[in-house]
């Protein structure tokens, strides 16, 4: 590949190669504050490549490749090369990582204890994590949370937060513009802008946190809090884990332990401010 870079996010060392300079330059800017170890072998490889050699110049279009490939992944225009890189990184972790149980969930931590939020796209888990990360919590990640199968601890995957649509203005109003990436307008997921996590969250990215509260947020509607039983939390988290099946009994043990030891709630909230207040209230009540 003509252009390449190495990025370490939590325990995962990525090698990203690209036929074009732009996506690599954009990544290097977003991840400039992350620790770098050029000698460490890559855990996951992402390749952004042109479909045909001449396509690099003529209507350039980015294909995503790597150790794992989803055959029908659509090529993206070069202006969305950063999004293609991010999708490639997510894909390699989601499909390839085996050292931890991987939950499709955001997480923040306080005093060494983790709040894990799992939900579909649009549940607000990413926005809540980003806002909490600016409000006295350590941002562990907006997309994936890693659970150590042996000890049960949560580990961070603090990639640059992918802010979407309305969340962009909400977060941009609170942070230094230097911590925001370029606006990627009209992507298949709507408008996207990346937020670089706070320096202290990046510095602490290898520190484990004990899971203390599990939330399943739902954005939109009257405020509601419903306790969730261990069985339902187990079912929801097997669905939210990308490698539960691959981990076999280790995954089963890790998940049964997580739902037994961690109180879980389904929360509904009408806007971010109400969501943040609700999280603070539940944390104060449940975590001592």
């Amino acid at each position, binding site marked *: 590949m003509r252009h390449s870079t190495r990025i370490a996010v939590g325990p995962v060392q990525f090698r990203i190669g690209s036929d074009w300079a732009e996506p690599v330059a954009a990544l290097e800017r977003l991840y400039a504050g992350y620790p770098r170890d050029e000698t460490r072998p890559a855990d996951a490889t992402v390749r952004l490549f042109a479909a045909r050699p001449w396509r690099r110049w003529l209507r350039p279009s980015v294909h995503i490749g790597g150790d794992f490939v989803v055959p029908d992944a659509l090529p993206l225009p070069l202006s969305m090369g950063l999004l293609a890189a991010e999708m490639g990184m997510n894909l390699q972790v989601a499909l390839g990582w085996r050292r931890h149980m991987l939950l499709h969930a955001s997480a923040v931590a306080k005093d060494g204890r983790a709040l894990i939020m799992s939900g579909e796209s649009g549940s607000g888990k990413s926005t809540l994590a980003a806002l909490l990360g600016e409000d006295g919590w350590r941002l562990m990640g907006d997309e994936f949370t890693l659970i150590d199968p042996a000890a049960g601890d949560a580990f961070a995957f603090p990639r640059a937060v992918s802010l979407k649509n309305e969340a962009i203005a909400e977060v941009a109003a609170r942070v230094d513009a230097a911590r925001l990436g370029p606006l990627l307008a009209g992507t298949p997921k709507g408008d996207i802008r990346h937020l670089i996590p706070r320096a202290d969250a990046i510095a602490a990215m290898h520190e484990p946190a004990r899971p203390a509260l599990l939330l399943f947020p739902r954005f939109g509607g009257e405020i509601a809090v419903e306790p969730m*039983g261990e*069985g339902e939390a187990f079912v929801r988290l097997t669905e939210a884990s990308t490698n539960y099946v691959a981990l076999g009994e280790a995954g*089963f043990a890790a998940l049964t332990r997580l739902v037994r030891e961690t109180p879980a709630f389904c929360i509904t909230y009408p806007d971010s401010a109400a969501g943040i207040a609700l999280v603070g209230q539940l944390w104060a009540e449940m975590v001592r």
Partner: protein
Amino acid sequence: MTDRAYRSAPAGALRIEALGELTAIFDRRSMQTHLVVSPMPEILGAMGEEACNPAVLAARLAASFDFDSEGDARPILAERLAELAAMGLVERA
């Protein structure tokens, strides 16, 4: 059909964890996770090492739980055993 006997899984094949109203069962042979509700865990717990049919099972369960082993229990247990067999958690003797 209602008298068909079944045998429990070999010792160590299943890891059974109660999670509130659900019970999660990991089958080490197939690597599959099964989620079941009552009375499945109770049936598995009452099977013992020898093959047993619904009548034997009904008598054992009646000793621990409050129901009449002579009533409707046998056909219901026969159905549940067939379902457990379909999941691979017990096998026909």
